[in-house]
């Protein structure tokens, strides 16, 4: 039992399963379908990956294990130089809290028929994030390891906030030099082989870090092994095209503050129709207008 790690380090020798719909290459293929991308793909588009393809990492959050100690909140604050939350204060659960500019993750308590359920919230790190597609300066970026990160070349237009189905990016309204703040899945650690601070801090092993493929396998295994303990659904496997964070629960997800009505289509797909039509309009419309202009021209 002690071998149950916080981290799934190796793939278990299983060839590509079909569970995971969106890999890294699909991600770039889909989001690479932009306006000028149509014409300038080779210039600005991502270089074709060579050699081994990396897989998105993610975290499996098993809410049946969480005891609401908020060690993850504390570790997150420490890792990101935010003010430390008072983890002794148990009254804090009386109100539902949202993440803030200075607190990228929060744990909420839900009273359900299965008793108190604690749910950690943070950025879900979508496989095909709306916020990334929304950004006109690529300040929001989907990193090849999986995290969605924010950069300082941002203009502060807040279309990422407007588009996020999980209401995650937070804007520093009180500042004249505002930033967008959200969980980065500790990208600086992951890219050098480390793990997110919250995962390492959890005393209950409620958080498990690994590739999404492995995490889904693990989540399925838990449900199969304890069919009466779990609600038979993995939140994040398919939602808005799948997210890097996955959740297990003992009760239906609506009861613990999740929206279950957002569908499985990746949100950027809703704008591809428009974006595909752009080059056609750009080429055909002027020709048509010129033709009409010539036809209707009267001799003076």
């Amino acid at each position, binding site marked *: 039992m002690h071998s149950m790690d916080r981290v799934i380090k190796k793939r278990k020798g299983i060839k590509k399963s079909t569970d995971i719909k969106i890999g890294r290459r699909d991600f770039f293929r889909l989001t690479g379908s932009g306006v000028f991308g149509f014409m300038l793909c080779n210039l600005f588009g991502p270089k074709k990956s060579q050699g081994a393809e990396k897989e998105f990492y993610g975290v499996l959050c098993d809410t049946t294990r969480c005891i609401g100690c908020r060690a993850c909140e504390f570790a997150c604050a420490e890792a990101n130089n935010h003010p430390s939350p008072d983890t002794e204060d148990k009254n804090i659960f009386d109100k539902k809290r949202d993440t*803030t500019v200075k607190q990228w993750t929060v744990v909420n308590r839900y009273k359900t028929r299965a008793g108190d359920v604690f749910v950690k919230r943070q950025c879900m790190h979508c496989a095909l994030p709306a916020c990334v*597609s929304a950004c006109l300066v690529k300040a929001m970026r989907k990193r090849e390891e999986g995290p969605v990160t924010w950069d300082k*070349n941002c*203009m*502060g237009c807040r279309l990422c906030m*407007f*588009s996020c189905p999980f209401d995650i990016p937070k*804007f520093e309204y009180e500042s004249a030099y505002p930033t967008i703040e959200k969980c980065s899945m500790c990208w600086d650690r992951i890219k050098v082989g480390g793990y997110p601070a919250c995962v390492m801090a959890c005393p209950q092993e409620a958080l498990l870090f690994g590739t999404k493929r492995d995490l889904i396998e693990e989540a399925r295994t838990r449900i199969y092994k304890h069919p009466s303990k779990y609600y038979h659904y993995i939140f994040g496997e398919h939602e808005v095209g799948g997210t890097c964070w996955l959740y297990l629960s003992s009760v239906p997800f609506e009861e613990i503050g999740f929206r279950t009505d957002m569908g499985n289509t990746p949100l950027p797909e809703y704008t591809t129709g428009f974006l595909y039509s752009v080059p056609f309009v750009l080429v055909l*419309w002027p020709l048509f207008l010129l033709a009409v202009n010539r036809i209707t021209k009267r001799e003076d």
Partner: protein
Amino acid sequence: MMEAEINLKRFLLNELKPKGKIFTVFNVVTLPIIIAGAFLIFYRIFYGLGATTNLSQSFPWGIWIGFDVMTGVAFAGGAYVLTFVVYILNAKKYHLIIRATVLNGFLAYVFYAGAIFLDLGRWWNILNPLIGNHFGVNSVLFLVAWHFLLYMIAEFIEFSPVIAEWLNLQKAKKVLSALTVGTVIFGITLSTLHQSGLGALVMMAKPNIHPLWYTEFIPILFFVSSIFAGLSMVIVESSISHKVFSEQLNEEHKKEVDDIILSLSRACAGALFGYFFLKLLVFIHGKHWVYIFSGMGLWYMVEVIGFVLFPCFLFLNGGRYRNLKVVRVAAVLSMVGIIINRFNYVFIAYKWYLPLSERYFPSISEIVITLAIVFAEIWVFRWIVNRMPVLREST
């Protein structure tokens, strides 16, 4: 040569002086608002968006986007529609109002789309998408930003012969006039794409938009609605400016303008009906009647019947019985309808599920700054019309 330069300087200095009465009702009302707005703009820049707006983490966009940008750009649509009629369809009758319309369109972009500067949290990075830090080529907003810039340039070129005429630069006027048709074609193409692009902007927020308003046809609806929004603006603007600047026009012109307004009202009725028909198709195809018996359903009916179908009927009626008053009422109603529609996408039907206490209502500062921008635009419009051959006959 020296003499010519001195003459030009004298001429420009003379033109800078105010013309006409200073203490008019309009001036007395609008000047304090413009000054207050200017102060509030400084306040916003030095103290941030939280100090001046009621925006929140749940409602990142308010009236600066919903009215200034989304609605302002739709109202400015008259320029591309009328340049299409005059320079592409070669319908010379409308040439009389083309200069004022293009000027109004250009200024609307400069002021209203310029208001995006205020709304940008990190405005000092505004040039990033233009200089490539970085090019977010997959973003609809990237397209819209570039189109705004290019369209402003196109509109300026379309208007530039008037400036050349004002400065008595005959050669320059000839060269600039030769650019018009090409620029118009470019401008219409850009308008088609960014008017619809403003609609595409909100589409990724599908889970947050009430199903009565969300459809894959949002870009087409935005484009079609910009036609009647723009034309309604032209009707209202030319009705007002032909009263205010009536000394610049002779009787024959006034009659012709009335005739143009009546023709435009029929065009508006057509565009409104097309828009209504599209809405109806979306409604039936999406089986949207299940949502109709709710607060949002009622609100939807108010928008579609009260501010689309009703003005459509008024435009038809006013056009048929040559009743300019009815046409003007219809124009104002359809413009209000556009404001309601754009507000719905930005903060009313957006996150409709949140309780009233968490919803967005514009702050006083947001409203004052918005009004200041509108009035400043009118001041600049008036300044130009009083000096350049916009309404009066060219020499």
